[in-house]
């Protein structure tokens, strides 16, 4: 089942994920050591994409849990289908079933609603479980997660303990809005994703945006790299680069020097706060353009 490192690298490329060398190693190591992978990095460097690409590499199902403040076990693990339970109680009571039998019945599989974490351990084929932005969840939830990640079993009081049928591959991402616990960190492999360098970003543009030629892709990547060096509130991520590339391609641009005015105007794809927009003025934009194109 497990793949060699080179195979992973090749398959990543095949599914359209332009990886740096090291991420393939980390993904291979996940399988070897059966550990989750914790990805950190600035917003927009493509952490979530790694999870998606990993699922594609293994041809596995992707189960995604988006964390948020106040996320609790009901939303992450399981929930009972209350409406159906209430109906069942009424219906069975009228045919004169006793309370115990009813209880037995309504706390069965049929009334259980799977949430991502439970779903992830009940699949026959190991899925990829992507726990996105784990730093947004509360500390209590993190502790619970840690327990799940070490035992891969959960106990549901009314049903008993459910053990994982197949151990999922787990990818966690964090934006660093909160310090994660040491225990969780030590449980995981760690990979820090940086903004891609110019060559890699150009390659990403070429793979993802049809109709952009090599020169333009390289120019765009260089321009974005220069913009990222400015003192911005929200540094543009890879998704923003792709949006911009698509826009420029839609305008049938083949060279950034062609229309400096259009460059400035379409930069709303990259700069998404009023402050940043004000900082990168026409002059700054022209100056950066002069440097990169």
């Amino acid at each position, binding site marked *: 089942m497990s793949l060699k490192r080179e195979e992973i690298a090749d398959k990543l490329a095949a599914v359209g994920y332009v990886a740096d060398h090291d991420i393939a190693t980390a993904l291979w190591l996940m399988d*070897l050591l059966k550990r989750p992978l914790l990805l950190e990095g600035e917003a927009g460097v493509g952490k979530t994409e790694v999870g998606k690409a990993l699922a594609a590499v293994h041809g596995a199902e992707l189960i995604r849990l988006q964390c948020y403040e106040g996320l609790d076990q009901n939303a992450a693990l399981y929930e009972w289908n209350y409406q159906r339970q209430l109906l069942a109680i009424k219906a069975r009571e009228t045919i004169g079933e006793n309370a115990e039998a009813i209880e037995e019945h309504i706390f069965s599989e049929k009334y259980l609603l799977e949430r991502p974490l439970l779903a992830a351990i009940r699949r026959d084929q190991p899925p990829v479980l992507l726990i996105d932005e784990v730093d947004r969840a509360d500390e209590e939830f993190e502790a619970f997660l840690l327990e799940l990640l070490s035992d891969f079993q959960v106990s549901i009081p009314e049903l008993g303990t459910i053990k994982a049928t197949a151990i999922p591959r787990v990818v966690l991402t964090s934006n660093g809005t909160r310090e994660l616990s040491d225990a969780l960190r030590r449980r995981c492999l760690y990979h820090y994703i940086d903004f891609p360098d110019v060559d890699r970003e150009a390659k990403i543009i070429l793979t993802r945006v049809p109709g952009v030629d090599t020169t333009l892709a390289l120019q765009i990547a260089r321009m974005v790299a220069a913009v990222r060096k400015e003192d911005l509130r929200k540094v543009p991520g890879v998704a923003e680069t792709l949006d911009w590339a698509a826009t420029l391609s839609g305008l049938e641009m083949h060279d950034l020097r062609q229309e400096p005015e259009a460059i400035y105007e379409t930069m709303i794809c990259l700069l998404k706060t009023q402050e940043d927009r004000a900082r990168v003025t026409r002059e700054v934009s022209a100056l950066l353009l002069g440097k990169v194109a």
Partner: protein
Amino acid sequence: MTGNLQEVPRRERADRHSRNGERSESLGAAARRRLTGFSRTLRDNGFHIGLSETRDALAVLTSPAAKQPISLKPALRALFCATHSDWVRFDEIFDTFWIGRDMRQRQVLSGMPGVSHAPARRLAEAHVPQEALGLPDDTERRNDGGAETSADGRGRREGASRTELLTATDLRHIVDPDDIAATNALAARLARVMRVRLVRREQIRKRGRRLDLRRTIHRNISHGGTLLDLAWRQRKIKPLRLVVLLDTSGSMSLYTAFFVRFLHGVVDAFREAEAFVFHTRLAHVSPSLRDRDVTRAVEKLSLMAQGIGGGTRIGDSLAAFNRWHARRVINSRTAVMIVSDGYDTGEPNELGEEMRRLRRRCKRIIWLNPLIGWRDYSPRARGMQAALPYIDLFAPAHNLASLAALEPYLARV
């Protein structure tokens, strides 16, 4: 750090375990020893490495990948690193150990923290050069005489009461670098303590109103599904959000360094906190304060905080806040804390108007004025007069004790 103390015996066990190394017979004893040495070097450099990491590293070395040295480094890096700061330093340590053959195991690489030092992540623990903080530079006025600004020796006393003393000393009088460091550490801790207590109180305080359906249904099966016996769920109260606006103009310069530290403590400790600094214009500084590298965070902020001496435009700054930031950072559970001496060179009416707008939006406005701690102070500045009607709490902030006194108030908000 208690975590460190507990860690020690486990690490030793890990060492012994991997030295016995019954796990991987195929691997040469020499290579195993070398790996143990590498783990130890990493630990000496502040990495947290336990039994399972060393064991897994052996598994990596015995796997086919070991035949390709090029993938060995990224593999061990993914395994041994746990934080970004580990990540940044790993390559150098790896190269020195495996490539620079003469590196001794126990040696700590230059510029790296020693064995007992956890990487300094929190402000309180990091030493920051005094100049970088924009400490008092005497270029500004002091209307009650220069005598007070010089050291009167009180802060230098040694002994158990030292901390207490620092708490009560006016921040202007703390000049000894050690005392400054201690004060800043206290400020950071104070912010943390505030948060811990506030959160705990919230959890104990109220019984919530939400129905816990899961438990309710379970309880009422015997009533035939008629919900008689209800189960309630403790409602989680939205945590108090603190938005701090710090005046960093020239007239505040003696207090700026301290409040920058306090600000970092607040942003670090409260999950829901936003920080702004202003003098003639407003700057949103929470992102800089969240920088993991504490020294860099403070340096960056100090640059922004440097007053231009052109006076304070509180009204303009508040207008900018109301216009651009308020919608995003203010919710119904927000207390806005303005730290300023109220010397406004702008139009008092404008300040009043902006205060009125702000008041409508947030739950409480707290105005901390370091001058209140001075003898015979009364809020005569015209700006201060205009702002007063909209302030819920007007409090002194000239020493640590006065900041600590805020906590019970915040708990009631």
